[in-house]
């Protein structure tokens, strides 16, 4: 069970926003935002690269200040804030990176003019920079931060971003999109966690032998049904494939799927096992296909 739990944590972390390579997360979110906003390939590519490169100026900040474990002095804060200008200089001096120079310089500007380094106001900040700013704030508050090295939840991050919008720092439209695309990812994570909770419970207490345990199992199953409505077969296939990769038994997955499937429109009771088996078969096939693709790389 301990091994299983560590595998579960690994899987959850892979969906989480607290990984080491945060700019990759920034780029991934930027890609989803671009897609959501219907950007063409050129604009989408720009936004993804800009999200990845916007903090390049931090390389120039003395390590002892960049990495200081404690409150910064005023001068140290001024030095850290210079990363925007160094990022700009770095990009503007390179023919290819020149197009990202303004993003590097202005991603800490705020609509109400309280940002840095140039205290720009709303009309002076282009949409793509506003998007990078919103992604950057979301990433900053959901990352492991000092002093607790803990991250806030998506829900708390949403509240913080909304307060930024209320203070006229971030733009409502782009902030809403950033929240939405992250929310979709979070739903996926929560769904896996819910199904896992039933699967683990099954494994631990051997359903059917103890009436009290049966009641608890029903309670947990109901919790899933009430909180999470059926998201479609493709979602179930994806979740099942992840569980298979984590070495969950087919029995455990079928039990979880069965409990989670009565809400399927037009689906009669008793056919849940058929549905669960079909989903599991497709999940296995997807895993085999992805392994095949990996081999061809």
């Amino acid at each position, binding site marked *: 069970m301990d091994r299983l739990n560590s595998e579960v944590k690994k899987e959850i972390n892979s969906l989480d926003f607290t*990984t*080491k*390579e*945060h*700019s*990759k997360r*920034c*780029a991934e979110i930027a890609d989803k935002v671009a897609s959501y906003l219907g950007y063409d390939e050129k604009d989408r590519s720009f936004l993804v*690269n800009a999200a*990845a*490169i*916007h*903090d*390049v100026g*931090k*390389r*120039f*900040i*003395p*390590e002892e*200040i*960049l*990495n200081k474990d404690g409150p910064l002095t005023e*001068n140290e804060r*001024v*030095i850290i804030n*210079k990363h925007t*200008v*160094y990022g700009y*200089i*770095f990009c503007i*001096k*390179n*023919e*290819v*990176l020149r197009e990202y120079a303004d993003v590097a310089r202005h991603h800490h500007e705020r609509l109400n003019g309280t940002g840095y380094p140039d205290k720009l106001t709303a009309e002076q900040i282009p949409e793509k920079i506003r998007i990078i700013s919103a992604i950057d*704030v979301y*990433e*900053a*508050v959901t*990352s*492991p*931060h*000092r*002093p607790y*090295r803990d991250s*806030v939840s998506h829900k708390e991050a949403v*509240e*913080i*971003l909304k*307060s*930024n919008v209320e203070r006229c720092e971030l733009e409502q439209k782009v902030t809403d999109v950033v929240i939405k695309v992250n929310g979709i990812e979070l739903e996926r994570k929560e769904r896996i966690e819910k199904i896992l909770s039933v699967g683990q419970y099954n494994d631990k207490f051997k359903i059917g032998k103890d009436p009290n345990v049966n009641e608890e199992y029903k309670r947990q199953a109901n919790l899933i049904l009430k909180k999470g409505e059926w998201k479609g077969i493709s979602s179930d296939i994806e979740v099942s494939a992840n569980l298979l990769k984590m070495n969950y038994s087919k029995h455990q997955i079928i039990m979880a799927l069965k409990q989670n499937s009565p809400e399927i429109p037009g689906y009669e009771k008793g056919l849940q096992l058929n549905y669960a088996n079909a989903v599991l078969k497709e999940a296995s096939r997807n895993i085999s296909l992805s392994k095949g693709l990996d081999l061809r790389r």
Partner: protein
Amino acid sequence: MKRSEDFVESPEYTYGKIKSAVETALKLANFDDIPPLVKPTFSISEEEIKLLEEKVRQTLIKNDNAAGVEKSEKYNSFLEWSVRIGVNYMLENEDDPILQYYLKEIRKREDKDG
């Protein structure tokens, strides 16, 4: 409720961003043409400029190493290009706080060495 500016980035977060930025820059661009050193707009000796260059180089190396940036032949020219870009900016901006930070260290050391 906490405000976004209340959150102090962890080193993992900061260096994760640096790694991704460097990898993206290396993927997109070339850094073979290193610009010449500019003429300083304020009084600074050649020896101090060399020490300044070394300070900037060491900062970049430390940060890139901490970020886990992979070293390659392209990285070497990228590093030297970055050093020159940073130093040139400093030599044209006497008030730059990073320049002042390094100069303070350099001059403190010079005083100590007599």
